[in-house]
């Protein structure tokens, strides 16, 4: 915690310096964001989900960790917001299943796939949705016009729209001040905890579901993710569509 704060102060100081030299940086768009030196780096971030170890308890922990960290409002209607949630195996992988499959009704975690070839990025008319160099697909909440083209474009149902003002559904005392709350009328989704990676930490769900979710650089043959993908059989969702999902399901 302490070192984090020190890091933040250092960063804030640098940012202030940068801003005084070049004020336009303050409005930096996706192409000009800053990265803190000590962050975790990868050529291509990816996640592997071990479906055989997903108990109800583990999944709930992962979801709670994510939604609390990111101030995701709890809305109990079809206008809800979810970054990571539970679906049956069949609903996720129906194009590679059959009626007698044992895992058919198995509950499984799902989230944005951070596709290598993401249609959501392609269709966004403002570049509010963009891919980082390390493959993470991010949102600029201040640029999004709320046209929801990206929601139609995502073939995985990974995106949510703020139909309501999310603050109405957040408890004042429980808001995490280290992560922005959103305005009404913008789209949001899982970010692979890019802000944590930049601070040298692993994603919240991975920490919460230790040993069930694997995370790492899929281009690095030594990484945890690659190791487990090499050993086990795995699937991705809707491979036929060519979006190249980077969330792998181990079965």
């Amino acid at each position, binding site marked *: 915690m302490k070192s984090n704060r020190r890091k933040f102060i250092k960063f804030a100081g640098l940012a202030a310096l940068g801003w005084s030299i070049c004020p336009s940086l303050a409005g930096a768009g996706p192409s000009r964001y800053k990265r803190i030196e000590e962050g975790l780096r990868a050529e291509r971030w990816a996640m592997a989900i071990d479906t055989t170890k997903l108990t109800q308890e583990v999944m709930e922990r992962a979801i709670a960790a994510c939604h609390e960290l990111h101030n995701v409002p709890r809305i109990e209607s079809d206008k809800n917001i979810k970054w990571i949630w539970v679906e049956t195996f069949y609903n996720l992988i129906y194009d590679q299943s059959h009626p007698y499959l044992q895992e058919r009704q198995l509950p499984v975690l799902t989230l944005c796939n951070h596709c290598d070839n993401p249609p959501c990025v392609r269709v966004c008319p403002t570049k509010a949705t963009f891919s980082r160099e390390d493959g993470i697909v991010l949102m600029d909440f201040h640029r*999004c016009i709320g046209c929801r083209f990206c929601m139609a474009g995502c073939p995985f149902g990974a995106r949510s729209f703020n139909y309501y003002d999310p603050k109405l559904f957040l408890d004042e005392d429980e808001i995490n001040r280290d992560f922005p709350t959103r305005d009404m009328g913008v789209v949001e989704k899982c970010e692979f905890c890019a802000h944590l990676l930049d601070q040298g930490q692993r994603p919240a769900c991975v920490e919460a579901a230790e040993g069930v979710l694997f995370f790492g650089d899929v281009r690095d043959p030594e990484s945890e993710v690659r190791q487990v993908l090499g050993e086990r059989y795995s699937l991705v969702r809707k491979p036929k569509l060519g979006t190249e999902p980077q969330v792998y399901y181990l079965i």
Partner: protein
Amino acid sequence: MLEKAIQGSALYWIWLLVLLAVIGVGFFAYLTQLDQGLSVTGLNRDVSWGFYIAQFTFLVGVAASAVMMVIPKYLHNHKAFARMLILGEFLAVAAVIMCLLFIIVDLGQPQRLFNVVLYPTPSSILFWDMVVLNGYLFLNIFVGWVTLQAERKRVGPPRWIIPFIYISIPWAISIHTVTAFLYAGLPGRDFWLTAVLAPSFLASAFAAGPALLILLAYAIKIFAKWDPGKEAIQSLAKVVIYAMLAHLFIIACKVFTAAYSMVPDKLEHYKYLYFGLEGHTMLATFSWVAISAGVIAVITLLFPKNRQADNILAFSMILVLMSTWIDKGLGLITAGFIPTPLHHIATYIPTQTELLITLGIWATGFLIITVLYKVGIGVRKEIESG
């Protein structure tokens, strides 16, 4: 020329006041939406586009169909269209303005609209749609105004305007093609992911636009006491038949592909559209109304006698409008989202607020049409009375 807009009969003013009242109600509904966000609509996480975007799509078609007057007049020198042409161009102007309004009310952050211009993104079809729609709006206002002014001075349209007129022909096709590409290029939305989407959009547009124009022509005949010409109406009626036949044919092709291949990803959407899934059959009822209305209209119009009878023709045009409006205005968007990417059957029913805002925008369109037609016909009458 504009002074003609403020010299009208009592009926004209009452009509304008009625429209203004509807616009007012719609505007207040929009203020609620601005305040409470799109939560006031029936949209949800799975069906994230709805009534607004559907009206937008339908109206792009109406706007594009002005080309059906320009082609015969300028490419085939078909004199009968001379009187009708300006009506088509002004209808296009009103339709495009409605389109833009429907896009704006659909945005979650309308005040950031200009981000589309500030961060131009050519990979997004929405960016191109904005370009072609605004270009088309400009072209139609410009061409309509210049030709009308020339007529008023009793000279032919200036030569330099001709290239603009010719450009407006492919441009009209482009607005509806690009609008179809908004949908047709999305992976995983199998209902839209088809090469015939743009052709089917154009076919239904070339039925709906001229049908609306014929009805407007009759209204003008009755209320403005000015006859746009029987021959033009008859030619337009033929355009409607051909277009409607093409439209129904393409629907049949789409249904065949889905039904015979039995590929579930495609078939499920058609099942939902025509029979409903998990008990949600409301849309299916509408779909059958659309098909029946379209088929009845075409069969009726195939007989020249029916076509020549004003009231039968007008009634058939109402059927055509109904059919094409349900197809794009209700079915297209919702059936594209259901079943969802996770195989759920979601629901979407527009709310009252959504309907009021929609009505308000339609009333805005009719207000624009009324005023523009008032001016256009006023000029025409002036010329004809010597």
